[in-house]
Each structure stands twice: as C-alpha cells, then as structure tokens.
C-alpha cells in the first residue's frame, strides 16, 4: 500500500491518469443512477434490476452492431429498445407493486433481475462480449495521460443525457407531471394527472437511461449476462449520496465515485476496489444519520 502511495507521489501524472479514467467510468454510474433516483423518487421503488437493464442495453447494442448498425448509433437504439421493455415490464409487473410495501417491490425487482439474467444467458449465451468501435486513443502531454476515445464519448454522452433529462423534467409537460407525482401522487391525481401513465413513463425512462449506459459499457469495457449487480450497487450508492431530486448532485456523486474507486484500486490494490465502495457506503450512511440526528434535535 505504501509503495503504491510512494509511486503516486513520484509520478503525479499517474494520479491524473487514474482520476481521468475514473471519471469516465463514473459518468456511466451517474447515468444508471439518474434512472434509479427517478424511479425511487416517483414510484417509491428501489429497482434491483437496474444493472440488468444496463446489461441488456449492452446486448441490444451488440445485436444491432451485428446487423450492420454503426456502433455509435446503437446508443439511441439501445435506449429505445429498453424504453419499450421498461414500459412492458411496468404493465406486466411493476404496476402491481407501486403502492405496496417496500419489501414487495424489492422482491419483485429482484425476481425480475434473475429472470432477465437467465433469459439473456439463454438467448445471448454466457460468453463475455465486447463491441469494437474502431475509435482510437488520445495521448496527451507526451504520453503522461492516455484516454481511449470511446471513454470520452461515453463521458460526454452521459453528461449530455443528464442535462437533457434535467431540462425535460423542468420544462416538458410529462417532466412536470413526473415531478408533480413525485411530490404528491394523490394531489397530482386530483389535478387530473394520469399517474399510472406517469409511472409507466418514469420506469421506461429509467430503463432507457440504463440501456444507453449499457451500450457504452459494451463499447468501452465488456459485458456478460451476470454483470448487472455492481451497477445496481453503485447506482444505489450514488443515489444515497446525492439524494433523490438533484441531478447535478447525481452527476457529481457518480463522477466522484468513479474517480475515488479507481484511486482506491490503485492504492489499496484491486482486490479492495469493490470493498472500498461498500465501506464508503457504510461510512456515508452512518455520517448522514449522525447529521440528521443533530438536525432532529434542533427541531425538537
């Protein structure tokens, strides 16, 4: 551990390289986390199948590329395909658990995640897959920092989608309806908002966001049917840190998590990289609880 720290001090550019690469993967966490925050905030459901949507997005991108679609165009395709799937899943399963106990929805989405895993294993096979984009690598500052262009593409895409989502929620009719439903579903219904449709749209939108993330994952990293869980866990972590209603906070938390995780992987060793994520989550939850308690005391 100390020799790794020493290494970082001796070669400061290494730290920049690590942070830069971490930010790129962090952008993907943020994308999946947007969706989780939306569904959690509006439907009151913690969607355990989040990572499976990411994985499916990757497989849609692969399949489309196999049919001759240029790799970068598979990003919107994956989003559209997952939007339809998300809508269908809402009509089949999710609408039954919306107003129920949190446990019921956890169980339902957990079941969904298993079904989606096994189905993709059956349809696409268990192999590890990647999609080559043909994009090159950027070498900056005389080889001190090296970035794969596809990672940059995914970074920019994630930020753009985040901003578009923010604008959509602020300005569009449906976006306003989603926010209204999140604030008070009953009041929204009284005011004539078809909350059932809002729920369906929100869940489908979440799936679409994950689908886009998945298509980026398959182009920059790898996918296979069982890759979902880490993405679910990280979205969860990002949402805990950022809260439900704040898109800028989600982006910041996602990017921060990516960078921190990569640095931790370097300093502590790769074996502790994911352990670090969980320890961080516990620390944040405890810290948050502590702050909240002080606030509660003031209120009393």
């Amino acid at each position: 551990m100390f020799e790794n720290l020493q290494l970082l001090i001796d070669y400061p550019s290494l730290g920049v390289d690590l942070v830069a690469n971490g930010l790129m993967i962090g952008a993907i966490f943020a994308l999946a986390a947007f969706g989780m925050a939306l569904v959690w905030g509006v439907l009151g459901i913690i969607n355990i199948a989040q990572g499976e949507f990411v994985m499916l997005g990757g497989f849609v991108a692969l399949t489309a590329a196999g049919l001759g679609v240029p790799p970068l165009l598979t990003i919107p395709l994956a989003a559209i395909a997952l939007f339809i799937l998300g809508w269908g899943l809402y009509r089949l399963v999710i609408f039954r658990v919306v107003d129920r106990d949190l446990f019921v929805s956890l169980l339902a989405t957990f079941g969904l995640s298993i079904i989606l895993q096994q189905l993709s294993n059956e349809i696409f096979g268990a192999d590890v897959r990647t999609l080559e984009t043909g994009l090159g690598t950027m070498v900056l500052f005389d080889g001190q920092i090296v970035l794969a262009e596809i990672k940059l593409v995914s970074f920019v895409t994630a930020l753009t989608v985040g901003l578009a989502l923010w604008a959509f929620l602020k300005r569009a009719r449906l976006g306003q309806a989603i926010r209204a439903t999140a604030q008070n579903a009953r009041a929204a219904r009284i005011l004539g908002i078809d909350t059932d449709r809002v729920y369906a749209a929100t869940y489908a939108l979440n799936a679409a966001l994950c689908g886009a993330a998945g298509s980026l994952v398959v182009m920059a990293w790898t996918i296979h049917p069982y890759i979902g869980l880490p993405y679910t866990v990280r979205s969860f972590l990002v949402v805990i840190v950022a809260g439900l209603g704040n898109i800028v906070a989600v982006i910041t938390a996602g990017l921060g998590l990516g960078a921190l995780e990569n640095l931790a992987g370097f300093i502590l060793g790769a074996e502790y990289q994911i352990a670090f994520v969980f320890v961080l989550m516990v620390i944040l939850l405890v810290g948050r609880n502590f702050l909240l308690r002080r606030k509660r005391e003031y209120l009393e």
Partner: protein
Amino acid sequence: MVLGNMLRKLGVVLMASAVTMVTTVGASAKVEGDTVYLGAAISLTGKYSTNGAHTRKGYDLAVDQINAAGGVTVDGMSYKLGIIYYDDESTPARGAQLAERLIQQDGVQFILGPYSSGLTRAMAPITEKYGIPMVEANGASISLFQEGYKYLFAVLSTTEQYLQGAVALAAETAGDDQTLRVGLAMENDPFSQDVRAGVIADAERLGMRIVIDDKLPPELNDMSATLAKVRALRPDLLVVSGHAKGAALAIRQIADSRIDIPMLALTHCDAAQVIEKFAEKAEFALCASQWAPGLSYSDDLFGSARDFADLFEATFDYAPPYQSAESAAAVMVFADAFERAGSFDPAVVRDALAETDMMTFYGGINFDDAGRNVAKPMVLFQIQDGEYRVVYPSNASEAELRHPTPRWSER
C-alpha cells in the same frame, strides 16, 4: 375377453421382467444389451453452458468414434459405449444431486466429469463415497488432488502449471545478467489464485522480482488501476488470469491505454475469442492452453491431433476448443481401462485406471497417486499474424517466439 386376458398376462410378464432388470441394474454396472453406460452431469444451461456444450461434444465424438471402431472388448465380449446426460445448470449443488441420482437411480458405475473445478469438487465426494470411478477433463484446480481421492482421475494439466511456461520463456529470453520484473493481475478466485501460486513459485525460483501482485475481484469490469501500475513500474512480463472476462479486458485496455509490455501472458484467450474480437490489438500475446491442433501427438482411434481437429470441425462446424479435446480423451481413458480390466466391476476398473499409460491425440496420459495426469505439459500459443502458433514447450513448438513485443508507437 380372451384378448384382454392375454394382454393382462403379458403385462404381468413385462412388469416382472422390468423388476428383475431394475434389480440387476442396481447390483452391477449399467449394461443394457451390448451397451455399457457412462454417466455425466454437465452444464447445458447457466453460466458454463458454452463450455458445457464443448464438453458434451467431446464426449459424444469419442463415443461415436469408439463405437464405429467396434466398441470395447471386455472379457471376450464386444460392448458399445453410451452416455446418460443430465444438466447440472452450472450449479454445484445440482451437480452433487445428479451424481447421486446417476449412481443410485440410474445404476451408472462410471462417471465422466462435469465442466469446471467447482462442479468437479461438488461431485467428487459423491463418487468417492460410492466407490465409483470418475474420469474428468475439465476440473483443473490443484486443490481437487489434495483431498486424497482414490476414484478421481484427471486427464488435463492442473492449474498451477497454466502459465509457468511464460515464466520459463521469459527466463530464456532474458539471458543471465539481469533480474526480470514480473507483474501479476489475477482474479481473486480459486482457479486464478492457483495459477498465481504456480507463477510465483517458478518466478522466485528463477530469481525474478514480483513488482505487481493485484488480485482482481470477480465483479470487476475495469483494470485501469492495475494498468496504471504497469505503466509506472514497467514489468518485463505481465501475467493475467481472469477467465474470458480477464483476457478480454486486459487485451482491450492494454491496447486502449497503449501500455508497452515486453511479454504478456494470459489464460482463456480462445474462450474470449481475442483474435476474432480484437484482431491486431491481441497480436504478440501469449495464451495458455491445454492442447492445440498443431501438436505432434497421435493415437489409433482419432489419428493425429490435426485429424481430431478436422473430424470435429466436419461434425460440429467449428474448430475444436481444448475443452472438447480433453473431454474426448477422458472417454478414451475409460475405454482403455475397461479393456485392460476385463470387467465392469468399478473397483477393478479403478485399479486399471490408476495403471493407465497411453498416448492419445491429446497427449500422453499417466496418472500419479493423486489422480493427476503427469504425462502432458501445458502449451503456450503466441498470437502471430492473427493466428495461434505454439511457441512452448520448445519440443512441440510450431513457430519462433516473437520477443519483445514492439512498442505501440512503433506498430
């Protein structure tokens, strides 16, 4: 009426004979007519389904070939081979259940191994308990052979040998006046940690220095933290083991980050299809394999390794992965043991298996006391001009090692 009576009588007779058949089957080996049955629980669904299918095709091809050549001759009688298959769904608990079922309900007395070390580990205690010989071709973990099992035999090389060839090759290229620096990036699972132990033992014996020793969590989908270390510390040899995912990630990210490594050695290149997916990015990488079609081994049943590859490709429309080759060899080992034992008594066959000393298209087969095949070395390929070429061991190599790997800026 008369017809009804006759049918009823016939029914009774049939049932009685069925009962006797069941009892005889329970008592001795599963032999129906002139066919002796082997049992196999392999992963036809679940995460090992691809390799499970490779395994099954290897078994089937060997059984067909042996039967076409007249079957096995035991005690003057000629028998055909058959296999009863079950799907273990890639889960160890199911594998153990199915081993029990094959032995207890189906009366099978000879078991062919499942796919993966984990499933073999789940089934071995069962076959051991009933004294049923298991010849396996796809469980390489060294720990399987430290339990003192008497009925377990493996035709493949064990895990710790997977990448020892890379250490030997690196030492050959280095000359003697410098200390080589080795980097390890190994998945934190039993298989890769066995591989790691083998590499470290050999590297330290040869006076090399381990400068990176990262254990990648199985869930990890990004190696950039480890690769940053590689960029800073510049090891002469980087060894990566993490199943197909590790191979795909390493090849992709090393190329994307343009990290210069004089020698890169991996496991599971063929499973990850690195040549098909990454083309020139995979060039110069060394890949560990149990077997290769270019090897010079041969036998009377299949002919040479190349003949086996051609037959397999003609039958199944793709080139045989080594999982199929070693699975076929496992069936050949059973056939050979039956003939030498002259009996289908499991204990006698077990002793015959322990005495096995044969040459196959897959390599020599000769078990040590723990049941490991000690007659066949691991093979290392190098990816040269988009093809796998055997470069190690040197007595079986097809091509010269290309070393060192040129820098990315010069490619």
